[in-house]
């Protein structure tokens, strides 16, 4: 395609991307460099049904005046990025100097909110993505061999986990793994331990969330693999069949190489999706033991009485950087393949 044609072809998309993706990111970045203006406190007398006493309150007029002068708030540079609730440079430096062993240092760092969330996010990403690709592939192969009459129903049933709203899906599972729910109670009987609870320990909660993630994401891999399977050329397969190749050998040496680029694409999308894991944490009430970067943003914007825009903006920027890091190897690989094909 000539460059000029390409330019006009991409222009509408490009403009929409700048407007709806680029500008909001720039705006979040600016907000993340600022913190609220100083709150001016004053002493007042408060009376309620339990009596009168002196208390402090925010001097709304004086604070509002400061806010009018600086609508964005006070400029804080990268202060929010390096504070304890984000990259925590000071705390890590101190931990490095005071801790006597590597494991003590690790414990201190992983106790900081950002790194705790990062650890869960990455664990979730890397524990969910490979099984999703393998399972999705196996399911696609199996469904592909079914007779036409039942195929439609099976395909529908298989993609159901993806159709269900993530929050609803996780809530349903949350009640099923309750100690009085069908899965929770069965597990208790199976392990003969009446106090076994999937919600109580952090390890079991992590495992539950990961299994949920696999359950929810597999249909996506299945759909893409299933579509790609329809494009596998039949000639080499027939030739291999005549040459006496087993079903395993045909899949291993013909189908898998053909689907390789598709698998890369699924991995890319899955990694991106799983890096922003959020709904299951809310659905499983797992905030206590499993926090993700997206959950931190939600916490800043929703769980405080006052929205912490700067903090949320900083976490968003760090999430974008995280996704960029995560995808770089895959993108480089795709680029190389693209070059060699040309």
């Amino acid at each position, binding site marked *: 395609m000539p460059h000029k044609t390409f330019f006009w072809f991409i222009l509408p998309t490009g403009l929409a991307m700048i407007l709806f993706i680029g500008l909001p990111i720039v705006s979040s970045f600016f907000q993340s460099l600022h913190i609220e203006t100083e709150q001016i406190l004053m002493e007042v007398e408060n009376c309620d049904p339990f009596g009168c006493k002196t208390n402090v*309150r925010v001097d709304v007029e004086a604070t509002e005046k400061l806010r009018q002068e600086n609508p964005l708030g006070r400029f804080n540079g990268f202060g929010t990025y390096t504070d304890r609730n984000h990259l925590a440079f000071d705390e890590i430096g101190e931990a490095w100097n005071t801790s006597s062993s590597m494991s003590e240092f690790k414990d201190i760092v992983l106790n900081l909110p950002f790194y705790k969330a990062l650890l869960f996010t990455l664990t979730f990403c890397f524990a969910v993505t490979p099984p999703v690709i393998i399972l999705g592939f196996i399911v696609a192969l199996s469904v592909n061999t079914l007779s036409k009459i039942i195929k439609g129903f099976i395909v529908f049933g298989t993609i159901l986990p993806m159709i269900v709203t993530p929050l609803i899906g996780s809530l349903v599972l949350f009640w099923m793994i309750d100690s009085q729910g069908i899965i929770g109670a069965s597990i208790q009987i199976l392990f003969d331990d009446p106090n076994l609870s999937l919600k109580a320990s952090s390890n079991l909660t992590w495992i539950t969330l990961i299994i949920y993630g696999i359950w929810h994401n597999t249909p996506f891999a299945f759909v893409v693999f299933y579509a790609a399977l329809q494009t596998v050329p039949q000639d080499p397969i027939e030739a291999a069949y005549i040459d006496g190749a087993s079903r395993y050998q045909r899949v291993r040496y013909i189908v898998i190489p053909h689907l390789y680029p598709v698998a890369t694409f699924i991995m890319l999308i899955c990694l991106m999706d799983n890096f922003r894991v959020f709904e299951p944490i809310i659905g499983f009430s797992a905030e206590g033991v499993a926090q993700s970067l997206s959950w931190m943003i939600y916490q800043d914007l929703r769980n405080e009485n006052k929205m912490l825009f700067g903090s949320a903006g900083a976490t968003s920027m760090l999430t974008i950087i995280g996704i960029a890091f995560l995808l770089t190897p895959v993108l480089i690989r795709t680029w190389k393949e693209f070059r060699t094909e040309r």
Partner: protein
Amino acid sequence: MLALLISFASTSVFAGSHSPCGVTNGSINILANEFTTYRIFMDEVKSCAGPDADFNVTHSVDHNKLQVAALSANPAEFSAKLVTNGSITPLMNDGLIRPLDDLVEKYGSNLNENQKITIDGKIYAVAFMANAQHLWYRESILNDLGIAVPSTYEEVIAAAEKIKAAGVMDNPYAGAFKSGWNLGQEFVNMYLGHGGEFFKSGSAQPNVNNEKGVAALNVIKKLTELSNPDFLTQDTNAVKEEWESGNVALMHVWNSGAASLLDDEGDQDIKADTRLAPSPTVGGGSKPATTLWWDGIAIATNTSDENAEASFRALVGAASSTDLANNNPNATVWLIKGYTPGDTAGPVVDAASRGTTPYPSFPHMSLMHGALSTELVEFLQGNESAEKALADVEAAYIAKATEQGFL
């Protein structure tokens, strides 16, 4: 103090003779928490507003998280909000609720003087009920094992251990320990019960990492060990379900829970066996380890005067309705004039008379509560020490308070 709570104020001014009910102008749109007593109150508000009124109410357990954003908009998403001494401060901080003196003068002739919440001499809210968390117990279970009603947390723990050892229940105690606001509130109760102060006096500097904080955390830890292992996922409503399923013999929840726990639904044997007791003291302290709350009505700043007046009329009509209070005497402790307290008011009146601390209303308290909500979990799971958990709370608070401009 008892007299203060349920007094018949004699000082009410009969300046305003306007009847509040029967609203025809303006629209009423209220945001409120979700529990049975509020539903009863809202039914009265609706009937006071009358059939011609444009009336809407949104009940949500997430009201605290919604309120600042919803009332900051101009015009505000809601014309009125049911507030408590906890949730009023974020609204006051940003000037999102308006002074009500003129409206009170016009329509509030039937209010008790102590219903008027004044801040710096102006009325910002009108309270209609008082609430507190206190002890609930199953009488037959305590009697069978010869356990006296506990009056301290040390006795609560001993009683729960005895019930567990006797094989009656696996997890005899319950409290709302769900990570988040509920867990933070349990610490607030226990820390105040130990006589703690959340901030260094006269400043917004945190002050929880001390002996009292550690002692409070250790009591909470002991209680959670006697609770359902899923305690970190159980909020007040989940705890009430546990109670109604007969899995629990002792619990510490809200007085207003009586409205749903003692109604005609559910297992009537358990209901007949349910008793209310004052909130226990802890660590040799004299004040019960709980906090006093009032619930009241507040009107948005960013709404038209017409809507504000309409909303205030309907709400204050209910907040001064003696019939509402006396038809539902056990729904809560009403602050309404002419109310005769029911059987369940005792623990709240007791808490007030023993000098229980009202929930702190510092402008920066919600940030402290938020830090407590997230940083105590690892201690309760046995993954870190109490001192470390409290140091984390202070560090998390400082980072947030700095960003909010308090430090």
